[in-house]
C-alpha cells in the first residue's frame, strides 16, 4: 500500500483546532507546500508547536488567521530580523502565547515521544522569569533526595508536518540536513505527514538504513511536493529563495502580508500552481551543488 498523495490531500482532513508539530529550522526545511495548503483551506484555531527555531511559516500561519495558540521558543526571521506578524499578534494579544524555550520543546517532545507523564529538570529555569508567566512550569518532589525540582509537561501533537528530501512509498524518510529532531517530534504525534521533494522509485536500491531519519511504520501520509520547502531551503536539493523571503519580510513589516498570501497561496489552486507561479528559471536558480 502506497502512502503517497498530494500536499492538498495530505492535509485535507486536519480539523480546525488541531495541535500541530511543525518541522523546519530557521530558513530551512519546513513543509511549505503543506502549510500553504492549510492556509488555502482557511483552517482555524490551530495550536502550533514548531521546532525550537521557527521562522516564516509560523509567521504566515499567524497572518492567515490559522493560529489560536503558539508555543514560542524562537519565532523570527533569523538574518532578516523579527517576525512581523508574530510580533504584532503577541503585542496585540490576538493569539495565546505559551512562553517557552528550547528545553520546553525538546524535552517536552522527548517526553511525549515515550508518553512519559512529565519531565523533571535540574536547576535551569531557576533565576529566570519563565516560570512566572508559564503556569505549566511546575515542581514536584525528587523521591531520591527529597528536594523540590522543576518540571515541564510532556508535549504531544495530533499531527506532525515535516519536510524531507527523499521518501519511499512506505514512508521511510530521508532528511539530509539538521538531524534527528523531526524523528523525536514524529514519535510524539498521533498522525505524521511528510512532504518530500522526491519519492523513491519502488525498484530503486534501498538507501543506507543509517541515513533514514523517520521510520515508515509511524508515517501515515507522504505528500509528493517537489520544491515543497520553497522559499525555504531543502538541504542538498536547493537553497532558500532569499529574494522571496525579503519580499515576504518587507510586506509583512508593512502590514501587507495579505498581498503575499494572495499572490502565492490564494490565487493558485494547489502546489503545482504555486510552482508555475514561481517559474522554472527561478526554481532552477536555487539548485545548490554541495553534498
Amino acid at each position: 500500500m502506497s502512502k503517497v498523495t498530494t500536499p492538498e490531500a495530505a492535509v485535507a482532513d486536519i480539523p480546525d483546532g488541531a495541535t500541530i508539530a511543525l518541522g523546519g529550522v530557521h530558513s530551512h526545511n519546513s513543509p511549505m507546500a503543506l502549510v500553504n495548503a492549510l492556509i488555502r483551506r482557511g483552517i482555524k484555531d490551530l495550536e502550533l508547536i514548531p521546532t525550537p527555531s521557527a521562522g516564516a511559516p509560523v509567521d504566515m500561519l499567524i497572518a492567515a488567521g490559522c493560529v489560536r495558540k503558539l508555543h514560542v521558543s524562537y519565532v523570527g526571521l533569523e538574518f532578516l530580523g523579527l517576525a512581523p506578524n508574530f510580533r504584532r499578534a503577541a503585542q496585540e494579544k490576538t493569539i495565546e502565547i505559551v512562553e517557552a524555550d528550547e528545553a520546553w520543546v525538546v524535552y517536552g517532545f522527548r517526553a511525549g515521544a515515550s508518553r512519559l507523564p512529565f519531565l523533571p529538570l535540574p536547576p535551569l529555569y531557576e533565576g529566570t522569569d519563565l516560570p512566572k508567566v508559564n503556569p505549566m512550569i511546575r515542581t514536584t518532589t525528587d523521591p531520591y533526595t527529597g528536594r523540590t525540582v522543576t518540571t515541564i509537561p510532556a508535549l504531544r501533537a495530533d499531527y506532525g508536518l515535516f519536510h524531507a528530501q527523499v521518501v519511499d512509498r512506505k514512508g521511510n524518510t530521508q532528511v539530509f540536513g539538521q538531524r534527528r529532531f523531526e524523528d523525536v517530534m514524529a514519535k510524539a504525534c498521533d498522525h505524521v505527514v511528510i512532504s518530500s521533494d522526491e519519492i523513491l522509485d519502488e525498484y530503486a536500491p534501498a538507501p543506507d538504513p543509517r541515513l533514514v531519519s523517520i521510520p515508515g511504520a509511524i508515517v501515515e501520509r507522504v505528500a509528493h511536493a517537489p520544491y515543497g520547502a520553497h522559499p525555504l531551503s531543502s538541504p542538498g536539493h536547493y537553497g532558500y529563495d532569499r529574494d522571496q523571503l525579503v519580499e515576504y519580510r518587507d510586506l509583512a513589516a508593512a502590514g501587507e502580508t495579505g498581498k503575499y498570501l494572495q499572490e502565492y497561496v490564494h490565487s493558485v489552486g494547489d502546489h503545482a500552481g504555486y510552482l508555475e507561479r514561481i517559474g522554472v528559471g527561478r526554481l532552477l536558480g536555487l539548485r545548490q551543488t554541495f553534498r
Partner: protein
Amino acid sequence: MEQTYTWAEMMAVSIAHEMSDGEFGSIGAASHIPAAGLRLAQLTHAPDLTFFCGGSGASNPKIRRLTESSADYRNLVTAEYQYSLDDVVDFETAIRFDFAFLGGLQIDKYGNLNMAMIGDWDKPKVRGPGTIGLIFTGGFKSSFIYTEHHTPRVFVDKVDFVSGAGWLSGGNSRAEVLRPESSGPRLVFTPLGVFDFEPDTKHMRLRKIHPWTTVEEIQAATGFDLPVADDLRTVTPPTPEELHLLRTEVDSDGVLRRYAPVA
C-alpha cells in the same frame, strides 16, 4: 596608514584571541561573527577548540564560506560530526559545554539576557523572538555574550524579563539558585570592545577598546555606569596574517568585509 579591515573583522579577531585551545562550545542563530572568530582560533592557536554550529548540526564546519544562516546545511557537509538536538540539550543541561555564544534584545549590568519582550509580559511594547536556548546559561560551564549593537537600549540597567540568567543580581546571587559548576558569563564582545565581569560584584566592566573608539564613547553607548579594568588597553588591529586567513580560509565570500570600517 589606511584602515583595511571592518569592525566585524576586528570583532572576529577579538573573539579569536580570547578562545582557549581544547574548549568545547556552541553558537546560536545568525552568529557569523562568532563563527568566524572560532574558526580563526582553530586555524591559529587553538586547533583542538571544538564548536557546534547553531541549527546546522555541524560540529567544526570547515566550509570556508561564512553562511548568513548558521543553520545552513552546507556547514554540515564539511563537519566532523552531525549532532542532534538531543545532543545539544543533553550537553547544555549536563554542564558539558565550556561556553556558548549568546545574545539578547537586552543585556544588563550583571549579564542577564532578555530575548522575550521589552515592557511587561502582559503588555509588551516589543515582542522579541523568544528565549530559545537562554535558560541553558544555567547549564553551560560559562558563556560569552555577543551583540552587533552596542547602544543604551541594548545595555540596560536591568532587563525587563530574564530569559537567561547571567550573574542575576550580582555577588553570590547566582550560586544560590543555580548549580555551582555552572558559572555566569565570562566576557562580552561588542563592536566597541571586550568586557568582563568584576570578580566580586559580578558587574560588567570594560577591558579592551577597539581602535576606533574611546572609554567615553563606550560609556555613552551603555545604559549603566561602566567600571573600567585597571589593565584596560586598546586592541591591536588584525595582523596581515590574521586577515589573510580570515579572507581565504574562513570568509572567502567576504561577508565580514561588507560591514563598515568602524562601528
